[in-house]
């Protein structure tokens, strides 16, 4: 029941927010997200003490169709649950810094609602429960990205985002329905089929290779759009750039991980033959994404857009690691999901801090900010170096493992993918140089440094960067059993 509480508590808090105003709403939202973090940590200890069995929830949901409300937390889920639980308070705190938001209570409520959807996705162990939460997570982010954005093109941008993602997920639904119709009844159930994850694994495996080939694309469509993988990424830069900062953080920090998590849990073990048929193609697309994102990032002037393309590039590497189908690559993907979540939220936090102080994100208008903002510069630099994958930081461990996996898959693929580290050093250091160093700009003398509260928001991110960099074993150890069972299912 702990898992169910973990999933639904943010929703309950979001509903309560309806009755709170102003400061009370902030206190309630932040309090709820911190309590959620405490519960997530408690769940982690429960897992460490007594294994995944204690966190399993299996309730009858739609008995006539054999669909159970089945949630559970294993090591892989736990990593992402913890990531979500850590990031949401920071994202909420970012939203608190924006006094210009109209109807802020609704904004906080939607962030918490989103958290329910995300945690549901990361813990679902029934195909339709997974799909349900997958779509539930889309509704709040659509409003967060659209209704609070001040960009002129917000309607067109969020519309594109919504249509892209929902079309992808409808394909996934079709794939799940097809697999579901191949399943047999669950033990003790009157329904003819079952959508439990184990039933889906069994049903998927017994499909012929030719069927798995197209079921693969049905399911992968949803994940490909969400991550996004080249060439399904066209919604992403605009949406990241024009959304309010907290929505961008949710999108890039957590929601993107839904796609990679989905591949690990709901694609590789479900259609193993389909995966091996399309492995090469996906690898090629992922590596194109790495190079493409990086090259475009080098040319960007808008800080948020630059980070968006950098994220596209880094996601490409994660996908490549997953589809290398090597233990080290998958492990790398798990660590990098966490590290990237922390890094990208940190980077957007920096961009937001600068934008709130100067009113611009354009690198051409910035410069020489570091003189009056030593703290901001340090935070910026830590986040940046972790994104560049400097040793001692989380980004290094993740990217190193990923590259090792890709290299094991194919030496040349590894070599090309390795360019990501060089490229990201180029565009990120360029961004730092243009914004923080360089000739003075109009803001150099007036900008204020991070306040205590803001420093408090950066502190956990910086701590995590070094934790992931110095002791990645904590998380590798957590995800290892799941990863090896996935690889066994794929037959590697």
């Amino acid at each position, binding site marked *: 029941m702990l898992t169910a509480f973990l999933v639904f508590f943010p929703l309950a808090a979001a509903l309560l927010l309806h009755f709170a105003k102003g400061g009370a709403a902030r206190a309630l939202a932040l309090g709820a997200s911190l309590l959620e973090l405490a519960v997530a940590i408690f769940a982690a200890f429960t897992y460490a003490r007594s294994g995944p069995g204690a966190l399993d929830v299996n309730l009858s949901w739609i008995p*006539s169709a054999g669909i159970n409300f089945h949630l559970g937390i294993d090591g892989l889920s736990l990593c992402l649950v913890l990531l979500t639980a850590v990031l949401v308070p920071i994202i909420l705190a970012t939203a608190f810094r924006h006094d210009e938001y*109209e109807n802020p209570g609704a904004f906080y409520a939607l962030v918490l609602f989103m958290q329910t959807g995300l945690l549901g996705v990361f813990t679902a162990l029934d195909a339709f429960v997974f799909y349900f939460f997958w*779509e539930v997570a889309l509704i709040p982010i659509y409003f967060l990205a659209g209704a609070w954005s001040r960009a002129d093109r917000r309607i067109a941008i969020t519309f594109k985002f919504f*249509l892209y993602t929902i079309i992808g997920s*409808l394909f996934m*639904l079709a794939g799940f*329905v097809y697999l579901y119709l191949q399943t047999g009844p669950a033990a003790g159930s009157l329904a003819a089929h079952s959508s439990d994850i184990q039933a889906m694994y069994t049903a998927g495996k017994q499909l012929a290779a030719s069927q798995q080939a197209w079921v693969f694309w049905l399911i992968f469509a949803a994940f490909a759009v969400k991550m996004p993988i080249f060439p399904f990424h066209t919604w992403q830069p605009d949406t990241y750039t024009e959304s309010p900062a907290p929505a961008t953080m949710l999108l890039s920090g957590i929601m993107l991980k839904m796609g990679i998590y989905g591949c690990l849990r709901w694609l590789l073990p479900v259609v193993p033959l389909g995966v091996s048929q399309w492995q090469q193609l996906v690898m090629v697309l992922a590596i194109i994404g790495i190079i493409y994102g990086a090259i475009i990032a080098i040319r960007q002037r808008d800080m948020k857009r630059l980070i968006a393309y950098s994220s596209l590039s880094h996601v490409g590497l994660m996908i490549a690691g997953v589809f290398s189908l090597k233990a080290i690559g998958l492990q790398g993907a798990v660590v990098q999901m966490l590290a990237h979540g922390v890094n990208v939220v940190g980077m957007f936090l920096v961009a937001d801090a600068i934008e709130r102080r100067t009113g611009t994100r354009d690198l051409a208008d910035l410069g020489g900010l570091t003189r009056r903002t030593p703290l901001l510069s340090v935070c910026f630099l830590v986040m940046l170096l972790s994104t560049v994958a400097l040793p001692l930081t989380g980004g290094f461990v993740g990217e190193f493992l990923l590259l090792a996996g890709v290299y094991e898959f194919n030496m040349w693929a590894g070599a090309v993918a390795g360019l990501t580290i060089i490229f990201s050093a180029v565009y990120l250091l360029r961004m730092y140089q243009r914004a923080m160093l360089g000739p003075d700009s109009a803001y150099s003398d007036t900008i204020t440094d991070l306040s205590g509260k803001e420093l408090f928001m950066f502190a956990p991110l910086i701590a995590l960067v070094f934790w992931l960099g110095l002791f990645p074993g904590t998380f590798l150890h957590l995800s290892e059993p799941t990863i090896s069972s996935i690889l066994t299912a794929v037959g590697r």
Partner: protein
Amino acid sequence: MLPIVLLSVFGIVNLFLGFLRSNRALLPFVLVVLALVFGLNLLDWNHAGSLPGVFDSPYVAQMLTVNNYSVAFGGIVLLTALVLLPFSRSYVVAGEPNLAEYYSVLLFSLVGAIMMVSYNHLIMLFVGIEILSISMYVLAGSDKRNVRSNEAALKYFLQGSFATGVLLFGIALVYGATGSFQLDGLAAGIAAPANASLQPMLYVGVLLLVIGIGFKVSAAPFHFWTPDVYEGTPTFFTAFMSTVVKTAGFAAFLKLLVVALPGTSAVWLPTIIAMCMLTLLLGNVGAAVQTSAKRMLAYSSVSHAGYLLLGLIAGRGQLQGPAAQGIFFYSLAYSIATVAAFGVLKLVADQRQREDYAGLAGLARTNPLLAFVMTVAMLSLGGIPLTGGFFGKFFIFTAVAGQGYIWLVVFAVLMSMVGIYYYLRPVIAMYMRPAELGNDTPIVVDGFQSATLVLLAMLTLVLGILPGFLSGLL
């Protein structure tokens, strides 16, 4: 049987209440009547015939059958009418002189709807359809000083009576071929034909039946009346038309195909599949290009007829099964969401005098409740999880895919992607576009209507979160 008797009696009583020269008593009276009838209808659940010995099912020379199927669909119809009624408040406030007549016609039309869901005899089907249709002709033209309303009534009447003729002709031919009006008699007559030379007549009759009912439920290519009639009809009655007529029509349709005509599925199955695809295509594409929210809802109701036709395709073997379950859940979710959407639209249109998307702009700021309810309704009609509409589609799609029509489901999924496009447009207007000048005053909604809207939104969400309560009923 009790619902039919009570609705007829109270319909007449209500006419006399009209002499009171005060509209105040009418709405509470009709609400109480409907709540009573709704409750009595549910009493028949699992034991047909609420008064043993007096009203044993099947009733009156095997004309009507009351079973769980008819109770379930009758329940949807009555519930829809019940939750729709609060939105007629504007008539009460405006002192509409003919309100008692409207309410009576509404009650009488429900008699027709209940006959349609519980018929056991083709004549009862015909009578039910006619009672419902004629009431609708009247109500379509109820705004009698409005040219559009007159046009709607005339169009609906002319085309509707033509379709009635087709239906009657179909009944006659089927009767001629099988010698029976009873559903089981028809099935027996088709399974063991007395005279093989009458087979062509039977097939033509079945086809005409499908066309006749297809017209009533606005299935393409017999849907042309729908957008104009729905747009011209006063919004309150449009909501009634697009929910009650559709629910009753599909309940009757499924019963006819599965109970009486399974032996002729070689004729009707390809016809229904073709109609279904055409309806989905024309309904969704038609809705996507509209600028008026009301007209969009009219086309969307055509597209929902397409999804329900899809449900008919899954109807095999016995009446109670995945198909009936899917159509039941879908009709319920669709009716609730449609009433909510039309309810909000009526409130907005009454005050802002416009029914297009721009009229909805800025609603999130002036009336957050209306905007929220409309959003829930749109998400439900679009079939997005968390709302009942998702599970409606889900049950129908899995039932049809289970029969092997994967390609048809894929087509329907593609069409529902188009649906998401146009259902999102009112949401965008409400949440992301600022209100136009002069249109930014909050809309006055009385407590009763607000409570009804909240109830509708809650029902939609409950159907979407805990579908297990209702999914296994049939």
